[in-house]
């Protein structure tokens, strides 16, 4: 395991810092990929929530199932696409992703009880934004790191 020459303390420190510098663009690329997944998932969930207010089960059961099915397919395709391209997961990003995802799903679940309640269009948009917000914020934070 030890064919390469051993380094002095100063050389080791320089090699360590150099390796960390070389990792910076790689980690940034990984953060951008995960950030884009977060933003896309946020938009899918927010849009789904908004559309379910318009096409709720009491109004059209078929439209409801089509919308939910399309959203599941979109989430599946996005996740699969991410798994194919991801090469690096920067430190702390998996926790940030899970936190954003659970926050968005939590708001989605809580506000789902309101889908049959008649409300103004801007309130529907606001609820959709509230659902998407954790994932959007998480995604933008990742892409800006």
């Amino acid at each position, binding site marked *: 395991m030890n064919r390469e020459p051993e380094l002095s303390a100063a050389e*080791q420190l320089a090699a360590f810092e150099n390796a960390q510098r070389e990792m910076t663009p790689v980690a940034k690329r990984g953060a951008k990929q995960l950030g884009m997944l977060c933003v896309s998932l946020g938009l899918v969930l927010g849009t789904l929530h908004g559309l379910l207010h318009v096409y709720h089960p009491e109004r059209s059961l078929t439209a409801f199932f089509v919308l939910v099915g399309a959203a599941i397919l979109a989430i599946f395709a996005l996740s699969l696409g991410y798994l194919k391209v991801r*090469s*690096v997961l920067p430190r702390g990003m998996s926790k940030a992703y899970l936190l954003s995802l659970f926050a968005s799903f939590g708001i989605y679940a809580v506000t789902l009880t309101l889908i049959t309640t008649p409300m103004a269009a801007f309130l529907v948009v606001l609820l959709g934004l509230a659902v998407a917000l954790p994932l959007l914020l998480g995604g933008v934070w990742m892409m800006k790191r």
Partner: protein
Amino acid sequence: MSEHPRTQMNDDFTNPVRLSLMAALQGVDEIDFKTLRETLGVSDSVLSRHITGLEEKSYLKVRKGFVGKRPRTWVKLSAHGRSSLTEHIQALRVITSGL
């Protein structure tokens, strides 16, 4: 009398490839083998050899899986590896601060 910082140095990390490998892993939760090899600029065999050596000493965790039909190997630092590296770097900083 306190111990000299050189006693805190870890002989497992003094090799340049191993040190670069550990440094690269410090900033990530997980990285795939191919990206790691390209970043470090080493061959498959050299990287495999060092990963195996560090994994045997529990500094690294290796996970093998598939994306579609393609096999992928993922590497990450273990908690033991992270703390050992931090101690080693701390010792290096103390030693070099006197130069």
